[in-house]
């Protein structure tokens, strides 16, 4: 575990694997996989929330999301168990939510990065439920 300072001046804790290569979803979503010296991943919960509060704004309604926006899932105890990058938002006329056909770049646990549909991430076997929020970098 190492501490890093955000450009906003806030400090957060991040995970860095011994091999400097492994990262989990938040390392992909927030760019930590490109960190100098080896990939880093912000921890679920407080560290991710600090990034969101100081560098992102909520996209509401989510139907106005664009490619590059991110989705962050919430857990029962204040954790943020998953996040992914929206690569191809799909909108259905008359609907106020992203279509399940929307595509995201996601890194699920130890699996490699993959392009997945929103349906796979909210309703598939390896899904995280519908408790997500869309954010855009300020």
């Amino acid at each position, binding site marked *: *575990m190492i501490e890093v300072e955000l450009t906003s001046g806030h400090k957060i*804790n991040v*995970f860095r694997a011994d091999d400097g290569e492994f990262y*989990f*979803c*938040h390392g992909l979503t927030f760019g930590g996989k490109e960190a100098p010296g080896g990939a880093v*991943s912000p*921890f*679920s*919960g*407080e*560290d*991710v929330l600090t990034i969101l509060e100081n560098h992102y704004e909520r996209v509401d309604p989510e139907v106005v999301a664009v490619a590059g926006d991110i989705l962050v899932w919430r*857990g*029962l*105890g*204040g*954790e*943020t*168990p*998953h*996040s992914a990058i929206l690569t191809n938002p799909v909108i259905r006329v008359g609907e106020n*939510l992203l279509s*399940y056909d929307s595509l995201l770049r996601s890194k*699920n*646990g*130890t*699996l490699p990065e993959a392009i997945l549909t929103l*349906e796979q991430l*909210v*309703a*598939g*076997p*390896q*899904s*995280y*439920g*519908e408790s997500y929020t869309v954010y855009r970098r300020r």
Partner: protein
Amino acid sequence: MSEARTFRGLQPVAPSQPLACRLRRKEVMGRQGPVPNMGEVELENLSAAPVEIAYWMTALQYLHLIVTSPDGRIVSEGHFGDRFAPTKEPLLLRLEPGEKFTVNVHLFATVPQTPVPPGSYTIRAVYEYKSIRAMSESVQVTI
């Protein structure tokens, strides 16, 4: 004077488990209609003392969903929580005596093969945390 005896064939009685783990099918409505193959895991504190479970990813990170295929092979791998990001400090699930904790789960969450081939599957939930090992009855699911 007391006398100790050993009786052949008698097994030591396992200490009672403080947790019950239950698995049942559940109809879950997503925003685009019913989500297929969903279930609910329930943990209940059966003991007279609080049970505390420290976790870093999800309270179900110690859950195995063991899925047996129609030909009798176990086709599930790993833990339910393997795909979740960890927290820096552990979170605590505290169950008071008699308290229950329930969470929706996809019954094939630990099956790496997608799509899951058609057939009749048997699924059992096993929750293992430190000395606790609680196992549910099995649930049958036909795809």
